[in-house]
């Protein structure tokens, strides 16, 4: 029982991080109709900057720098690279982001080299006892708290501000939104900026304890969580990203926690389990849990 509770607590907190990652993935798809495969390496970039500069700037300063730089680079990718081919086929744009991802990830891996980079966060390896022998790392509690605050702020902005209305209008009918005076280029740039900031924030928590530190594979791991979370929630739904993120975090944690009982499925089933859930959801609801169903009025 206590193992179950511990896995539940860890799963929920990991799910919060995954939800943040998926949110950044979905927001770019929603506003700019681009499946952003460069997202994993943006997250790695965010973590790398914190890892490099926390000694000189302090943890807080390094995080702020990381958010600023990552958001700027994301916006540059969105505006400069993709602007040239703005009306191109979504498949082409996705492949372009894949190219950006490879370049960025390769360069960062080279820079990290053999260094043992950590985020230098103030929570370290401390754990909080929840009673009954259940423990949860402090970093995970911090991650969950930050995720909740960011998500609530984001959803309220989407619901109540002019920016949110403009973004949702542009997502649904770009040409009509332009007729209403919505500047589509700015909306897309804003979404990329936001995605970059979310990637940097999530990057800190993904690489903090109990993860071993910052390495070149972090980006792939993050994308491996973002894709099933976003797809099973529905690619264009922010609510879907949150629910999908939680589902992925819980699934991965439980599958890893009970791997002795699941040994007949092979070792390392935990990293595949989210995809199994995604496929099961897509079998029943091909448009995802909350995604815009391709409704055709006939």
């Amino acid at each position, binding site marked *: 029982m206590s193992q179950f509770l511990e896995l539940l607590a860890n799963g929920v907190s990991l799910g919060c991080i995954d939800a943040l990652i998926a949110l950044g993935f979905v927001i770019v798809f929603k506003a700019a109709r681009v499946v952003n495969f460069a997202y994993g390496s943006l997250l790695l970039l965010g973590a790398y900057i914190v890892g490099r500069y926390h000694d000189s700037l302090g943890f807080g300063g390094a995080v702020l720098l990381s958010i600023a730089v990552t958001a700027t680079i994301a916006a540059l990718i969105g505006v400069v690279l993709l602007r040239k081919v703005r*009306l191109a086929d979504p498949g082409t744009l996705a492949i372009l982001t894949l190219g950006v991802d490879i370049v960025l990830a390769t360069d960062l891996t080279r820079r990290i080299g053999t260094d043992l980079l950590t985020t230098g966060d103030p929570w370290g390896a401390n754990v909080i006892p929840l009673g009954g022998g259940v423990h949860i790392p402090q970093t995970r509690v911090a991650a969950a708290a930050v995720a909740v605050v960011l998500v609530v702020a984001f959803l309220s902005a989407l619901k109540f501000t*002019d920016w949110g*209305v*403009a973004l*949702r*209008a542009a997502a*649904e*009918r*770009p*040409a*009509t*939104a*332009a*007729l*209403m*005076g*919505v*500047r*589509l280029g700015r909306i897309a740039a804003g979404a990329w900026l936001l995605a970059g900031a979310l990637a940097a924030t999530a990057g800190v928590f993904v690489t903090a304890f109990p993860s071993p530190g910052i390495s070149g594979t972090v980006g792939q791991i993050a994308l491996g969580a973002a894709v099933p979370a976003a797809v099973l929630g529905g690619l264009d739904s922010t609510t879907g990203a949150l629910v999908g993120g939680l589902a992925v975090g819980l699934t991965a944690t439980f599958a890893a926690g009970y791997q002795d009982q699941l040994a007949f499925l092979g070792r390392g089933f935990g990293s595949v389990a989210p995809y199994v859930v995604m496929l099961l959801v897509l079998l029943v609801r091909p448009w995802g849990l909350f995604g*815009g169903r391709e409704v*055709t*009025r*006939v």
Partner: protein
Amino acid sequence: MRVEPLLRVRDLHVAYSGALPALHGVSLEVPHRGVVAVLGANGAGKSTLLRAISGTLRFAGGRVVSGSIECDGRRLDGLDAAAIARAGVVQVPEGRQVFEDLTVEENLRAGGLVTGRAARRQARDRVMELFPVLRERAGQRAGLLSGGEQQMLAIARALMASPRVLLLDEPSLGLAPRLVERIGEVIAEIHRCGTAVVLVEQNAAMALALAGTAYVLEVGRVTLQGSGAELAATDEVRHRYLGVQSGAPPSRHEQLREPELVAQGISVRFGGVAALSDVSLTVARGSVHALIGPNGAGKSTCLNVLTGVYRATAGSVRYQGKEIVNLRPHRIAGLGVGRTFQNLALSASATVEQNLLLGRHRLTRAGFLSAGLRTPAARREQTAQRRRVAEVASLLDLNGMLHRPVAALPYGVRKRVEMARALCSEPSLLLLDEPVAGMTAAESTRLAEAVARVRAELDLSILLVEHDMAFVMGIADEVTVLDFGRRIASGTPAQVQRDPAVIRAYLGTARQEATS
């Protein structure tokens, strides 16, 4: 001295990529506080003109080649759509295009993004007064509104920007006469409040009644211009767009045979809402049966049950003696029920011929492997299929355009392609969903002839849903009238036209309009 116009279009040339030029030297002036109507058949370039003014040509793959557009002395050509909207020239797009996932209130807010807080509040009060129904529905998702309500929301949304010039693209398209009248009143009211209006319309009676100046476009050129009253009096306009001097109705099928389709007691419920209650109708073999009724009466729902897109909660549908209710759509299509779609179900990037070949899918025997390997049998079959497609195309005057992409064709022609696609599956029963919506009187007369020709040559039974009463009364052997999901009358066109319930629900206003 001459007063400067508010909006001036000078010698405008527009071309779409990969297609012929769409506008050749169009000039047009909109005076301050004026209403200007732009008339013309499908493909004349009316929508293109509005797209050029509002800066949305690039979404349709077009561009301004030469000429200028000025609003109050400021050049608009070259600006993007958002900048033009911010300059006070706001368009209500064709086909409403409300943001369906946003609430009514949020749609209005999206329209007012370009103005300040105070102006927005004022504009909101004004549109709520103009459209009380939007106040009642403020918290609802716009996708749940009926077609007429969505049109009102689209106009209200544009008014939220407090525009100096309002561009309206076919606001009456697909609406029942009662609603068309209401939209006309609203436009008159907008004009009274000082906004200049450019109105692109198929409904010439409404447009000419409102317009100070009117232009007639033909194949990308202005061929007539003058005051609304002047144009309404010219023979050409009366004949073409007002449908005066209508030809004799096509001859009726003499002998009616055994029923092709018998629907009994169909009911459909969406959640708690009854969309259809206990509707029955019979389509006699070889006849044309029309299903009419005001917006929201359940006509499209009925068609969707017959084709298996929606499931009926109760009732039975027998086609050639076989029960087909709640079969899957592809099974029903496989039995020989073809249909066209109101919003067109064509692949825009494919050519007309490719679209029509898709219509022959159920009759194509070559499988994935033999077609891929181009076996002799598959090649022979392909040749035969192409020959048949060409025959069907010629029935609907489409021979010349088999190799043009559908996206490059005007709306009226696409509707004929849609019908040809349905015919390509060699149906025995053809269902037509609003075949003439958005067509001019002349075009709908041509389509009526085509329908009569097709029925005679291919020995079809036809069930059609349509708003255009003149079209329906000229072509149908039998008419069933729906209102609020119930059948309120059925019989021959003459019987239905005399039925007091029908006159109350539908024809009352149409009659007045025709005689006024």
